[in-house]
């Protein structure tokens, strides 16, 4: 049965991506020829490494198309320019599925890893690679991306991708207040974790949106907590607003200033298919004006059943009714023709 679920999930990912063509504005496209070499050397991550005598292969595709039967380490490198910077935040590197493990560097800086290299090898061949790009890392010209891949057996490399490149989330334009970026993160349940004033100083930081698998929590399934403190802008005071948390894999409970304001979880009236669709749904939680303070603390408890986990896709932030309406009512359908967003109302508690 587990395999069946996996197939259904992969199917969803593929179909959801095709429906998302308008959501993602392309900043740099990576389909085409890349520099490629078997072997492994940390120096190959550096932007000024001279790869002029490397081979070239087409990406995406199984590297066995060129290097038949090859198992082991290999690196991909590519130089690229960025046409336009749509703004800070919410730039997402998308690399599709990489078989088995990858580690990605942009301009010499590590931006993500999925799976685990030897000696504690763990494959991630069926996980979609999406890495948030830190602000300030990209230049207009002469950027370098370097990808270290380890393949233990069978097909290898950047094998399959619907979206391959760096993308900007157009939905970010709907936000009145952007909450993406660094959040506090922990996988340990603690007393008073949802309360105002809870001390999260020692917690790790994580980029939101982005799966936790891609940010050092490889293979983790189960509960995790995100915390964010923010000051409500004056122009948004005394308004009913919508807290948008993009998509979360799989379930979440959201607390604002210690009070539960929304949740998406495994409810009794879901059928099994609905349960497994939760990770597709946009979280748009209505927040009455009186629930906000000047200083606010937001806590999101996430439960992930398997594979990817976390607040993995934006937009993340506050929207007015009119903008949230655009997000909710935009047509988007899954593989069976069901509108993805119509289920939202099931979870709204106000």
């Amino acid at each position, binding site marked *: 049965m587990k395999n069946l679920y996996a197939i259904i999930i992969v199917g969803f990912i593929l179909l959801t991506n095709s429906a998302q063509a308008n959501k993602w504005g392309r900043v740099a496209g990576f389909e085409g020829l890349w520099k490629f*070499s*078997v*072997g*492994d*050397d940390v120096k190959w991550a550096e932007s000024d490494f001279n790869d002029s005598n490397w*081979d070239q292969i087409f990406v995406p595709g199984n590297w066995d*198309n*060129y*290097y*038949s*039967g*090859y*198992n*082991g*380490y290999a690196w991909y490198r590519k130089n690229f320019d960025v046409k336009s910077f749509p703004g800070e935040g919410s730039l997402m590197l998308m690399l599709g599925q990489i078989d088995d493990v990858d580690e990605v560097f942009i301009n010499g800086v590590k931006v993500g890893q999925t799976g685990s290299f*030897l*000696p504690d*090898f763990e494959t991630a061949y069926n996980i979609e690679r999406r890495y948030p790009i830190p602000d300030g890392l990209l230049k207009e010209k002469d950027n370098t991306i370097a990808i270290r891949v380890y393949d*233990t*057996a*069978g097909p290898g490399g950047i094998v399959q991708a619907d979206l391959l490149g760096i993308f900007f989330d157009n939905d970010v334009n709907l936000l009145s207040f952007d909450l993406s970026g660094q959040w506090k993160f922990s996988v340990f349940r603690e007393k008073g974790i949802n309360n105002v004033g809870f001390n999260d100083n020692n917690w790790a930081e994580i980029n939101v949106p982005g799966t936790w698998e891609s940010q050092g929590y490889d293979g983790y399934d189960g509960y995790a907590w995100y915390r964010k403190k923010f000051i409500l802008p004056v122009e948004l005071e005394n308004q009913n607003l919508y807290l948008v948390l993009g998509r979360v894999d799989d379930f979440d409970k959201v607390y604002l200033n210690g009070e539960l304001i929304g949740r998406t979880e495994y409810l009794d009236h879901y059928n099994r298919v609905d349960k497994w669709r939760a990770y597709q749904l946009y979280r748009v939680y209505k927040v009455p004006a009186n629930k906000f303070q000047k200083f606010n603390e937001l806590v999101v408890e996430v439960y992930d059943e398997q594979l990817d986990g976390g607040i993995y896709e934006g937009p993340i932030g506050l929207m007015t009714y009119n903008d949230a309406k655009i997000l909710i009512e935009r047509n988007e359908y899954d593989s069976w023709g069901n509108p993805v967003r119509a289920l939202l109302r099931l979870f709204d508690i106000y």
Partner: protein
Amino acid sequence: MRTRISIILLLLIVNFGKSVLGNNTAEIELKGYWKFSIGDKMQWAEKNFDDSAWDDMYVPSRWEENGYRGYDGYAWYRKNVVIPDYLSEREVFLELGYIDDVDEVYFNGVKIGQSGSFPPNILTAYNASRRYRVPASVMDFGAENTLAVRVYDSQLEGGIVRGNIRLVFGMPDVVPDIDLNGFWHFNTGKEPDADASQILVPGAWENQGFNNYDGYAVYSKVVDVPASLLSKKLILMAGRIDDDDRLFINGQFVAETGEYYGTSNTDMHREFRNYFIPDGILKPGKNLIVLKIIDRGGEGGILEGNIGLITQEKFINYWQRRRKN
């Protein structure tokens, strides 16, 4: 082995063979009269044994047709061959066609291969074409070399009966910096034994005295690594292993393929292993390489490939030459 897989592998080998048997291939024909004696004495394997009193036997042929009608049992073949100097640095295979039923082959007194299993647990290999890799270390270039083939026939026709009989000198696709083809220590079980026996790598253990054995086994070898190589990135080309394996060097876990601790079948017996050795694992002088293997059915062991330690530079170059499309 599953038939479909065998066919795929056969295709791979044929393709691979093409590149090896290109224009640069040399051969020494070995068809013709060999020295021959029935009986079985292990000193007949020796390079210096005087076989001048032995019969002459045409190879390939059935010994029944050459004066040994109705003979079943042990017999030995011997032949001297001069290998010219210019053929050093090649990848050498001894082809002996089809042998009925069981054989083991000595090159200058050193065993280089076996097919089937001798009494008391007889396993015929009459339908297997013999092709044995000859390690460079056993050959004398520019001098006379001695081949000795011990054969056991259990019934009906016997001997080196048909097929190509020759030494093939190919330009190797790749020459490892440290050649690890040849003998390794071998024992069944999960840990290395002090009194491990010797086994030829590559080659299924079924052909080397462990007929029908499925389960855990350990290959080990002490390897001298010169200081000049220690400063370089090295890769252990460990060949195609059936089924799953874990690599340890000097007692430290380095790499694995498949699920050594698992119980279900993987497809890893199709896969060639390239194990990158992290800095600081290999020491100057003697190093112990241990491959722990589990076989869950059919053939088992390090089945195929050019086994050795290679520098990353040479490894990249080798794969660039193999690139297609």
